[in-house]
């Protein structure tokens, strides 16, 4: 219980500039285990930059970024060694790219894509790896007969589901998602959203989901952060921010959703 009360990820006033251009300015957040945070805003608002900063794919210029490891130790991500960061990335974290090709190895089989992350954790037994990979493919609704095919032969929706399986096979505690449903047909999107929603709840995952789609944020997240010009302008409970937005920009966003 004591660990459950402490945040998993904490950012204090983190900032990033690209030359004279502001990427992110003074963003603070805490994420607890089992919590899903949506970061919304239009293109150029800094939301993808924030995701890259939180996952330390980009270095912060200022501020503090802490992560609570599996052993309970709280570590400063900015000063963590590269080897340890890579290990964290391969095991305790997941990163789902909008373009699945960036998160998959397109020339190796689906089974190998999933198995590779297990091997990073030390799994060596071929049969076990294959069984686990098959289980995961089924969980993300990919027929087991497609296990030896490369993702090149997969549809966009299947690739995205494979990318999710590859990320979740190591039981990460924290998953970063960058527009996970972007660029997919609506029917494919609905299936994927339903899948993500179920997995996040079943596995008790924490997630930071970047999306420009407020419906995705409403469906998947507990809390929401609205970004504009690199800054957080409003944050709170997802349904509260969407149903009773306070800031002019959030009101504009919330009122711009087309009713179906």
């Amino acid at each position, binding site marked *: 219980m004591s660990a459950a009360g402490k945040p998993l990820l904490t950012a204090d006033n983190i900032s990033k500039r690209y030359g004279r251009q502001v990427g992110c300015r003074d963003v603070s957040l805490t994420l607890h285990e089992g919590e899903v945070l949506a970061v919304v805003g239009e293109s150029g608002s800094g939301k993808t930059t924030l995701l890259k900063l939180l996952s330390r794919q980009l270095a912060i210029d200022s501020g503090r970024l802490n992560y609570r490891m599996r052993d309970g130790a709280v570590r400063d991500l900015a000063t963590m060694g590269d080897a340890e960061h890579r290990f964290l990335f391969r095991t305790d974290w997941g990163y789902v790219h909008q373009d699945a090709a960036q998160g998959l190895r397109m020339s190796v089989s689906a089974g190998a894509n999933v198995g590779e992350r297990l091997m990073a954790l030390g799994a060596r037994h071929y049969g076990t790896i294959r069984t686990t990979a098959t289980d995961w493919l089924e969980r993300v609704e990919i027929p087991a007969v497609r296990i030896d095919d490369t993702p090149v032969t997969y549809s966009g929706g299947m690739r995205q589901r494979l990318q999710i399986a590859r990320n979740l096979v190591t039981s990460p505690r924290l998953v970063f998602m960058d527009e996970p449903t972007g660029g997919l047909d609506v029917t494919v999107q609905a299936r994927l959203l339903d899948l993500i929603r179920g997995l996040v709840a*079943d596995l008790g995952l924490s997630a930071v989901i970047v999306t420009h789609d407020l419906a995705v944020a409403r469906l998947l997240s507990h809390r929401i952060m609205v970004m504009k010009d690199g800054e957080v302008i409003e944050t709170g409970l997802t349904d509260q921010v969407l*149903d009773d937005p306070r800031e002019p920009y959030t009101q504009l966003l919330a009122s711009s959703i087309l009713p179906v």
Partner: protein
Amino acid sequence: MSQPILELADVSKTFTLHLQGGLRLPAVSDVTFSVHPGECLVLAGPSGAGKSSILKMIYGNYRCDSGRILVRHDGTTVDVARAAPREILALRASTLGYVSQFLRAIPRVAAVDVVAGVQGEMRDAAVTLLRRLNVSDRLHAVPPATFSGGEQQRVNIARGFLPDLPVLLLDEPTASLDARNRAVVVELVAEKKRRGVAIVAVVHDDEVRAAIADTIVDIQPLTSRAA
């Protein structure tokens, strides 16, 4: 007399519409009432008086500008008006239930799963409750997006009534139901009350209100009060 489980003190809210040049619309002002376990309090008053807004503020869906919304929860008292998002989520998970006016259908999620929730431990109970509300078995596996208004509302009611939570907020639960299903809802409310659940309801139907209300609080539109 037991302690109240829910207390509103001087609750006020004004909407500021920035897209309409900062137009300020007062929603409610100085609302004060308390509800005890086993009591059903009905908010009465004309449409637009802010009754639904009060329920949404109690649930934490709308912000509260001033005043207090105290809920007894897990041995402590939480002020929803000031609670952090995580506290509100915890409150919803174990204390506060809410039946909204309209069901928000989720693509691909079957009616029974809408009721039982994503974890699905309550599936059998969900089926039983759907049957009681006359949602036929062949609809249980179908996503409710294509259901009629009345069917959607009954799915919504089942979802709100299934968990055993000490406070239940009902926003016009019988608005699009026929007499037979209205009677089921009245029965369900009576059962909740017997189990000590405190209920705050917005009900326009006089018959239903007379059947469930222990206390009636009159909410008048702010414009007429100001005049």
